[in-house]
């Protein structure tokens, strides 16, 4: 079976996680990436769910954060106040994974509304997104690579990256802000000086022009272009046989 973009994304996400870290995850690829890391180089990773869950063992492919299947056999069931108050707001969450409708060049995230074709449409809003983006030491966004999803400026700044390109400290934000945007075509990072999104690596077989053409903000062509490492055979086996045997998360169109 050919390696799928979702599998490359999951492996890229896993690679960002160090052993012993505390990670706030959501349903889908973030959770898959986290459990891939936990099954390989980071066995002491602690995944947290905002609803009040630590170190769960999801079962039978849950449909969402409130699905009993996702918090199966956790080591702790508490609530928002513990996970988001006494962990995230306390400043001990290393990495937070987020999805997005839109992410702009400064890593600002929109999960609230779209204005495509002049028509205003509302979506889920923040939930824990603004809290994670504001407070986690490092934020990783996993999303589909599409020009309209990566605009120069988000239609609504739900969760702050580097608003106005300013340093987070100048804005009184505690967390470290956006670290990676992992898409089905590439991995993006942020320039320490300009705080704008930069290419980190292209997935195998994807050209820079393809990525640039599908990115709504200007993307600088690096002198030398790195290629995203493919998942190892062992990682693929774990992904396909252990973490997502029914291919629910890895099989979906993003």
């Amino acid at each position, binding site marked *: 079976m050919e390696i799928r973009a979702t599998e490359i994304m999951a492996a890229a996400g896993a690679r960002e996680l160090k052993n012993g870290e505390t990670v706030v995850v959501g349903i889908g690829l973030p959770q898959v990436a986290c459990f891939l890391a936990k099954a390989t180089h980071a066995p002491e990773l602690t995944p947290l769910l905002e609803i009040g869950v630590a170190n769960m063992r999801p079962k039978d492919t849950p449909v969402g954060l409130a699905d009993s299947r996702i918090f199966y056999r956790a080591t702790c069931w508490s609530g928002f106040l513990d996970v988001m108050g006494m962990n995230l707001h306390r400043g001990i969450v290393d990495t937070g994974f987020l999805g997005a409708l839109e992410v702009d060049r400064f890593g600002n995230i929109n999960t609230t509304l779209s204005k495509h074709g002049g028509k205003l449409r509302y979506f889920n809003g*923040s*939930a824990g997104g603004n809290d994670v983006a504001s407070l986690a030491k490092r934020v990783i966004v996993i999303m589909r690579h599409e020009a309209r999803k990566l605009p120069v400026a988000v239609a609504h700044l739900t969760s702050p990256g580097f608003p106005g390109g300013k340093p987070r400290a100048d804005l009184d934000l505690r967390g470290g802000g956006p670290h990676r945007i992992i898409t089905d075509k590439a991995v993006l990072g942020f320039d320490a000086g300009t705080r704008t999104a930069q290419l980190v690596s292209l997935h195998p077989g994807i050209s820079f022009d393809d990525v640039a053409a599908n990115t709504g903000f200007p993307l600088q062509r690096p002198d030398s272009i790195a290629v995203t490492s493919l998942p190892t055979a062992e990682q693929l086996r774990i992904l396909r046989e252990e973490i997502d045997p029914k291919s629910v998360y890895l099989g979906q169109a993003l």
Partner: protein
Amino acid sequence: MTGKIRTVTEVVKTVPDGAHIALGGFAIARSVVAVVHELIRQKKRDLTLSQGVAGLDTDLLVGAGAVARLIIGGGSLDRFGPVHCINRARESGSLSFEDWSSLSICFRYLAGALGLSFIPIKSLIASEILDRLENGAGAVQVKAIACPFTGERYVAMKALVPDICFVHVQIADSEGNCRILGPRWDNEEQAKAADRLVVVAEEIVSTDEIRREPERTIIPAHRVEAVIHQPFGAYPASVFGCYDYDAAHLKLYVEHSRDARKITDYIDEYIRGTADHSAYLEKAAPLQQRSALKARPVLGY
């Protein structure tokens, strides 16, 4: 002894139009469906609703036109879809809307529960959520402040004190001592912030049973005004340890909620068209179907 056990009909009669109601559900889990249906049957109006992450319960109330003001951190029906009725109401501007985050709603409930009139937070900062609050309905709920000791800047938020909170729990005694199985999101804080608290319980146990494991009592009886005993009271949402969500009925709901006319059809058929929750259950999920949803004891779903 019956203690504080009341029917949902009795309890909902005591909820005035315009009341601020806090709902205990999260997306499609422990949604207070039995209460929401009765609020719709009794044609309650102009409600203010607050909730951490809105789901089926709130979407239904908004779809029925019972809500004047929403105070939520977000909303979703998980993979079954967005909260169409809520989003449509926002697009049409048919209700006053306050957009927060999960933690900011939780902190506001915590302040209410602790009797603090305000609480600081480091979320919301430098976001359009805060801009919209400051320039809209939330203007009197947020204010920039500095720590009197460190000078660090915070967003001060006004405490959230609902008139009445409805929480769906798995286990209670007739006095209102409640156990919540699985994650509790912001249920404890919202329940203890509210001026009135009503719980809906899947199972009623004796107070002697409660006294065997007092650590598990999340809400003690003296905080509770009434206990509604309603098995499958959250259907089609899930209640961990009791039953799974009904994927088929949730799909049916989402199909209807996409469209303003069709949601009315749904409400007419399943809610206004049924006398009470038992009649609704018989119509939407006859016994055999409910049995199939029952949780397996070890899995809990």
